[in-house]
């Protein structure tokens, strides 16, 4: 009863347009008073800070900063120019660039929010210019970033591997396969939408012109070279790559392009700090909520329900999807895994579900949670970095949620999609 009132309170705050951190924070405070009155009040602040005191989250502020620098200066424009010269003649054009770019960026950053921030600043204006609708452009940006958690390296897969003792190499191989499948699904959607929106596309350029475009963008191309090269050659970690890309962007924009002066740098730094704050305050409230979900042992209760219903394998998989879908609405990805995987994994094993397959399922569900309204971290990142209202982004995201659900069903019921690449590599 009290719980229902608290949930009602959350819905009311949401509809009334309270800041999202209040929508999460106020009901959490009410819940604490109602159910954990004896818990010291200061614990609330401890959990709020705990929600963001992770080293692995540091990639987000740095990549937001780098993206704002590139977007305000020349680097982003030149990078898009190169890709347009190479694939601008295809019908989907810039739409495919978003998918491919997010996969490449996700491959290195391992962070979906960072991917949204970085890609958004670079390609959103170009998508609109090419004729894609606002709705579709926003939806595509937010959803493509999901691939960051699937395509290796991925902290999410490492966390899963640690909890369940599954081989991380195999998970990475499987994540690559599933990430590609998702990318292809988005590319097909882009192709269809490009026809519908009648998106403009340029003429096919001769190779001479293409090479010239690449040469002209040599300084801008240094950015992906440094990030990708630096990580895969073992010089830097993904988080460090984020910081290094900030330094590179500042140096190139000031020394080579002369498009950045001290005043502009200060303004961009300040804006990036504010963007960071907007996202992290939500993660902070998520830290508080996931603490209460853990204490209440919600997943165990759900499993109890399943057990009493004498559910089979199919019902279990559906229940897994629903659990993650709901949890993903409120809680950040890594906490979701920590709370849900330990109770669910043994059940998955008892149904004979392959650990790698289950890992893909779980990770895909976590991805989906980041783009499903009303609480989807990636939605908020896009809202904050592009300055678009959350409601507009949500409208754009729905069709992609549908695409995701279709892919999710395929992954759930055809284990071969997840296991194909690992078997190819490891036999």
């Amino acid at each position, binding site marked *: 009863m009290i719980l229902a009132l608290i949930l009602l309170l959350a819905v009311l705050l*949401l*509809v*009334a*347009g*309270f*800041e*999202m*951190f*209040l*929508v999460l*924070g*106020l009901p959490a*405070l009410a819940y604490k008073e109602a159910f954990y009155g004896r818990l010291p*009040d*200061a614990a*609330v*602040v*401890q959990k*709020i*800070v705990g929600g*963001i*005191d*992770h*080293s692995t*989250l*540091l990639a987000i*502020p*740095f990549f937001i*900063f780098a993206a704002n620098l590139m977007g305000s200066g020349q680097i982003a424009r030149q990078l898009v120019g190169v890709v347009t010269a190479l694939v601008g003649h295809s019908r989907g054009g810039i739409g495919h660039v978003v998918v491919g770019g997010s996969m490449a960026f996700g491959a290195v950053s391992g962070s979906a929010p960072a991917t949204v921030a970085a890609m958004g600043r670079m390609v959103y204006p170009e998508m609109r210019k090419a004729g894609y609708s606002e709705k579709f452009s926003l939806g595509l940006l937010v959803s493509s970033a999901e691939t960051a958690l699937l395509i290796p390296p991925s902290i999410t897969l490492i966390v899963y591997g640690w909890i369940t003792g599954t081989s991380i190499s195999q998970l990475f191989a499987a994540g690559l396969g599933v990430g590609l499948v998702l990318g292809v699904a988005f590319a097909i959607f882009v192709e269809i939408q490009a026809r519908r929106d009648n998106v403009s596309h340029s003429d096919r350029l001769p190779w001479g012109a293409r090479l010239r475009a690449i040469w002209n963008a040599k300084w801008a191309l240094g950015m992906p070279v440094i990030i990708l090269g630096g990580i895969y050659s073992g*010089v*830097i970690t993904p*988080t*460090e790559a984020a*910081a*290094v890309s*900030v*330094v590179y962007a500042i140096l190139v924009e000031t020394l080579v392009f002369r498009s950045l002066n001290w005043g502009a740098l*200060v303004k961009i*730094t*300040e804006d*990036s*700090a*504010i*963007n*960071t*704050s*907007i996202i*992290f*305050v*939500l993660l*902070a409230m998520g830290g508080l909520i996931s603490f209460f979900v853990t204490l209440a042992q919600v997943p165990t209760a759900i499993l109890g329900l399943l057990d009493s219903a004498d559910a089979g394998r199919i019902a279990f998989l559906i229940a897994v999807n629903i659990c993650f879908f709901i949890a993903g609405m409120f809680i950040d990805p890594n906490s979701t895994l920590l709370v849900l995987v330990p109770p669910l994994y043994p059940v998955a094993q008892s149904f004979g579900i392959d650990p790698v397959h289950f890992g893909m399922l779980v990770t895909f569900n976590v991805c989906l949670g980041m783009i499903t309204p*009303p609480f989807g971290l990636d939605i*908020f990142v896009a*809202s*904050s970095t592009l*300055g678009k*209202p*959350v*409601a507009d982004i*949500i409208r754009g995201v729905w069709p992609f949620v549908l695409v995701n659900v279709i892919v999710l069903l395929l992954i759930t019921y055809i284990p071969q999609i997840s296991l194909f690449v690992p078997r190819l590599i490891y036999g």
Partner: protein
Amino acid sequence: MKFLTLLRTIERSLLVALFLAMVVLYTGSVVTREIGGTFASRFAWVEEAVRMMNLFLVFLALGLALERGKHVGITNLRERLPAGAIRAVCKLIDLCGLFFGLYLAWLAFSLVQFVLKSGQASPTLGVPMGYIYLAPVVGFLLLALRYGLSLFGIIDRFNAQEQAE
């Protein structure tokens, strides 16, 4: 308001200094690792320092973000209400936000005292850990201040976004 202008200058300067320092430190630690040897070991504290600085960055920017209408929320349903009702809802939000900010700042302050008394220090730098909870103290106070100013009509945070862009 002279005080507000001064406060904003301080907030902005701190944010910029913190963020740039984080970038320099993190990049610097890559360089020291490339140099290698026991020299690299001397910079093992950078990771911890940058993580703490990020906490302060996040909380220090809360108030400015609110003042500029940047915090995310789903406002399109509210906007369909009649003008009088919108005003009332906005005041209610300001009021709740004010209390939320003050309450959490107060809780955070008690945590600062508790942790300082317990003597906890950060593992590599040896900084008293109570100080990290100063970040939410200051941050939630700055947030509460902006809610309060908006409640009494001194700043207009609901239309700030349109003005800015």
